[in-house]
C-alpha cells in the first residue's frame, strides 16, 4: 500500500450499510474461512457477509481465492476452519444439496447445464417431482415461464440447451437457482462470456433480484463492472481479505491497487504504428468448424510489419477456426493466406512456422504446452530438431539448458526449476513460457489468441508489454481476444468478427467501447 491513509478507510464499511446491518441479521455470514490445498493456502481466515437486498462483489485476481470461498459456501469444498451462518443460524454445508436446501444458488463460470437435455429438463433435474418417480415437466415448465416473465429472463423452455446462445444459457442457470428458491445467489464471473449488451441486460436482472430482497455475490476481476453493479466490494488477494469497501468509498484505482498489492500503471499506450510491408495477407479465407458448419466465411485481412491488428468478438464466432487455419492445424475450405507473399494456407504447421509464423494458441493447456513435459522440454518443442540444439538427431543438453535458462530469465517465467513439469506453473507463467518459446524464433508474424485470458493482472501487463515490444521491433502482430479492453488498448486497428465474418472495423483511438460492443453483438450501424 503506497498511501497509509488509504488503509484506514479500507476496514470500515460504509456507515449507511453498517446501520442497515445492525438492524437485520445478515443473510449470510462467513467467518474466518480457511481452506488449504496441498501446498496452497487458498483461503486464509476470510470473513465475508451478504445482507438482504445488496450486491456484494468479491473482487480479486485469478487465484486470489474468490471461487474457492464460494465453493466452500456451496458445499463443494469442506473448509479446514471457519464458520458459516445463514440468517444468523450456524450451519454446516456438506454438499451442494445442503447448500440448495439453505437457499444458496450458484451460477458457475462454466455453466452446469446438460447440453442434450431441454431447458425444462435441466431445471427439473434433481428436484422432487409432484408425480413421484415420473417427471412433471409440464408443471415445471409452467412455473419456469412465470418466473421468467416476472424477472425479464427470456427463454424457450422446450429448446435443447446446446441450441441456446451463451446469454440464454446463463438465463437458464439463473432460473434454475430461482426455481430452487435461492435467496443467496452467487455469480462466478458471469460476464466473461457475454457481449456488452448482454452484460447490461444481466445487470438489470441482477439489480432487480437484489431489490426484491435477495443477497447477491458477484465474483469478478473486472473493476468497471464491479463498480457499476455492487453495493459493497470485498477484495481478496492471495487467499486473504484485503478489505471491504462501500461503492461510494471505492474507486477504480483503489480497487486495482488493493487487488494487486502495489501500484501498477495500466498505461501501455504506444506511439502510432509505423506501417510497413504486408507480412500477413488473408483473402477469402473459409474454414469449417468441428461440427462441419462454416465457421469462417470469407475473411480478408492484412497485417503489416510494425502494427498490432486486434480481432474482437464474442468467442465462438469463428476466431478459433481462423487462428487454427492460419497456423496450419485446421484444414481450410478455401481462400489464401500469404506470409511475406508466400502461400501457406493448407501447409503443415512446420512449413507455416518456417515461413515466419509464431502462434500462441487460445487453449494453452491443450495446444500450447505438453503439461507433463518439463519447462525446458516445453521451451524446446519447436526448435529441438534444429542446430545448435541437436546434432545428427541427438539433443545437445548443455546448449539447450543454457538457452532455456536464458529464456526463463528473459521472460520472467516463475518456476522452481527447468525440470518442473509445466502443468505445475500458474496460468500466467505458462503463457510467459509459450511466449518465450514462440518469440525466440524471431517471427515475422505473431499470432496470439486470447493473450491474457484467465491470467492475473501482473502477468497480463507483462505480456501486453512484450506484444507492444514485438510490434515496435517490426513484427506483424495479430491478436484475437474476447476481452474488449485488451483489444482496445493494444491494437492499432480493430476488426470485429461475428458469425464467421469480419462485420466491421474500428479505430481504437476514435471508436468507443459501445460502438465496438454493438459490432460484437452483430449490430452493424447503417
Amino acid at each position, binding site marked *: 500500500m503506497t498511501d497509509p491513509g488509504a488503509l484506514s478507510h479500507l476496514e470500515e464499511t460504509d456507515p449507511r450499510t453498517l446501520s442497515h446491518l445492525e438492524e437485520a441479521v445478515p443473510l449470510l455470514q462467513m467467518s474466518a474461512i480457511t481452506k488449504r490445498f496441498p501446498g496452497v493456502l487458498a483461503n486464509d481466515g476470510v470473513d465475508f457477509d451478504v445482507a438482504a437486498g445488496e450486491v456484494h462483489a468479491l473482487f480479486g485476481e485469478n487465484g486470489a481465492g474468490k471461487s474457492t470461498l464460494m465453493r466452500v459456501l456451496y458445499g*463443494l469444498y469442506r473448509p479446514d476452519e471457519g464458520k458459516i451462518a445463514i440468517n444468523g443460524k450456524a450451519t454446516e454445508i456438506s454438499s451442494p444439496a445442503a447448500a440448495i436446501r439453505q437457499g444458496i444458488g450458484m451460477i458457475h463460470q462454466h455453466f452446469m*447445464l446438460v*447440453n442434450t437435455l431441454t431447458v425444462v429438463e435441466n431445471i427439473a433435474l434433481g428436484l422432487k417431482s409432484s408425480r413421484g418417480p415420473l417427471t412433471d415437466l409440464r408443471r415445471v415448465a409452467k412455473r419456469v415461464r412465470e418466473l421468467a416473465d416476472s424477472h425479464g429472463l427470456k427463454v424457450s423452455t422446450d429448446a435443447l440447451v446446446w441450441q441456446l446462445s451463451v446469454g440464454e444459457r446463463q438465463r437458464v442457470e439463473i432460473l*434454475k437457482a430461482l426455481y430452487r428458491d435461492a435467496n443467496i445467489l452467487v455469480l462466478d464471473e458471469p460476464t466473461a462470456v457475454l457481449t456488452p449488451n448482454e452484460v447490461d441486460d444481466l445487470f438489470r436482472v441482477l439489480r432487480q433480484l437484489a431489490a426484491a430482497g435477495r443477497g447477491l455475490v458477484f465474483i469478478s476481476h473486472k473493476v468497471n463492472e464491479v463498480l457499476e453493479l455492487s453495493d459493497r466490494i470485498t477484495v481478496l488477494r492471495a487467499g486473504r481479505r484485503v478489505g471491504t469497501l462501500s461503492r461510494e468509498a471505492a474507486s477504480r484505482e483503489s480497487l486495482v491497487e488493493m487487488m494487486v498489492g502495489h501500484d501498477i500503471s495500466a498505461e501501455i499506450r504506444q506511439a502510432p504504428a509505423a506501417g510497413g510491408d504486408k507480412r500477413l495477407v488473408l483473402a477469402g479465407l473459409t474454414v469449417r468448424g468441428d461440427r462441419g458448419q462454416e465457421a469462417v466465411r470469407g475473411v480478408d485481412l492484412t497485417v503489416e510489419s510494425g502494427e498490432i491488428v486486434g480481432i474482437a468478438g464474442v468467442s465462438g464466432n469463428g476466431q478459433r477456426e481462423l487462428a487454427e487455419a492460419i497456423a496450419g492445424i485446421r484444414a481450410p475450405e478455401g481462400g489464401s493466406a500469404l506470409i511475406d507473399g508466400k502461400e501457406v494456407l493448407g501447409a503443415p504447421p512446420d512449413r507455416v512456422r518456417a515461413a515466419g509464423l509464431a502462434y500462441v494458441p487460445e487453449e494453452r493447456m491443450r495446444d500450447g504446452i505438453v503439461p507433463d513435459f518439463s519447462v525446458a522440454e516445453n521451451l524446446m518443442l519447436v526448435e529441438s530438431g534444429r542446430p545448435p540444439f541437436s546434432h545428427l538427431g541427438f539433443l545437445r543438453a548443455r546448449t539447450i539448458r543454457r538457452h532455456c535458462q536464458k529464456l526463463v530469465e528473459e521472460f520472467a517465467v516463475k518456476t522452481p526449476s527447468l525440470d518442473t513439469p509445466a502443468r505445475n506453473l500458474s496460468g500466467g507463467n505458462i503463457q510467459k513460457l509459450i511466449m518465450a518459446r514462440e518469440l525466440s524464433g524471431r517471427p515475422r508474424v505473431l499470432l496470439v489468441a486470447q493473450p491474457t485470458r484467465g491470467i492475473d493482472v501482473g502477468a497480463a501487463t507483462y505480456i501486453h508489454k512484450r506484444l507492444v515490444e514485438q510490434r515496435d521491433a517490426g513484427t506483424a502482430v495479430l491478436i484475437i481476444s474476447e476481452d474488449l479492453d485488451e483489444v482496445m488498448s493494444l491494437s492499432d486497428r480493430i476488426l470485429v468478427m461475428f458469425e464467421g465474418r469480419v462485420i466491421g472495423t474500428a479505430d481504437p483511438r476514435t471508436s468507443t467501447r459501445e460502438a465496438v460492443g454493438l459490432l460484437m453483438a452483430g449490430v452493424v450501424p447503417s
Partner: protein
Amino acid sequence: MAHFFTYAVLTSTVAAAIALSSSFLFAALGETMGQRSGVINLGVDGIMLLSAFATYFTALKTGDLLYAVLAGAGVGLVMGFVTAFISVTLKAEQGISGIGVYLFGLGLSDLLFLRLVGTPLPISQLSPIGIPLLDRIPAVGAMFFRQTILVYLAFLLVPVFTFVLNRTTYGLKIRAAGENPSAADTVGISVARIRWSTVLIGCTMAGLAGAALLLYDGIFMENLTQSEGFIAVALVYFGAWRPLGVMGGSVLYGLAIAVVLSWKSLGIIPLSASDLAATAPAVITVLTLLLVARRFRQPAVLGKPYERGD
C-alpha cells in the same frame, strides 16, 4: 435356395431369430443403462458366462428352471457389485477393468464347470408359451407368439427401459450423469449412486442374458457365449443408446445367425464354408455400425470416472 422360401422354414427361422436375439437384448439393454450414465462395461461377456453356469448348475441340481434363472440373475447382480466398485468407487480405467472381469468370468465359469460337473448333461429347457389368440394368427403367431417367458420378458423390457429413461426423474438423472456429471453434482445428485444403480441393473441384465442363452442351448460348455457379450456392447452403439434401436440391432443380429444356421442345415451353405459363414453376423453388424453409428453422439463422458474438481 428354394427350400428356404417355404412357409415352415421361413417361420421357424424368424422364430429362432427372435429367440436368439433375446439374450443379446437383455445384455444390450442393461449395457445401455450403464452407458447412458457414463459407465462402459466390457465385462458383460464374462458375467454372462458365470451366470450361464450358475443357471446350468442350479437347473441340474434342483431341476427347477425358475431357481435357475434367479441364480443367473443373482450372479449377475453380485458381479454388478464387483464392477461398480471397480469402475465407480475405485474410478478404474473402464476399458481395462472390463477386460479383466471378462477374463475372470471366462476362466472361472470353465473351472467351476470342470470341477463341479465334469461331463455335460443336458437340462430341461423352457417350454414355449403361446399367447392366447395372438398365437393363432397365421405366420405371425408361429414367429412371435410361441416363445419362452424369457423372450417375452426381454422384449417387454424395451418399452419399460424407454419409459424409465425418458419419463422418470431417475432417467433424467441417468442422462445427466452421462452427459455432464458436474451439472448433476451441483444440483445435489450423487453421480456415484446413480452409476452404481445403473451398473447393478446392467449386470443383472447380463445375468439374465446368460440364463436365457443357457436355457436356449440347454447345455453348458466352455466359452458358451462365444463373445455374445461383446456383440451386445456393440449393439448399444448400433442402437444409438436407445432401447428401441438396441432392440432393432438385437433382432437383426439374431436374424443373421438364424439364417446362417438354417442355410447350413439346408445345405445352401456348403460345409466347407460354414466357418466363414458363421462370421457373417459379425460382419453385418460392423458394416451397419459403420453406416449408422456416426450419425449419433455417444454420452459425452462415456467411460470417464467422475471426479469433483474445478
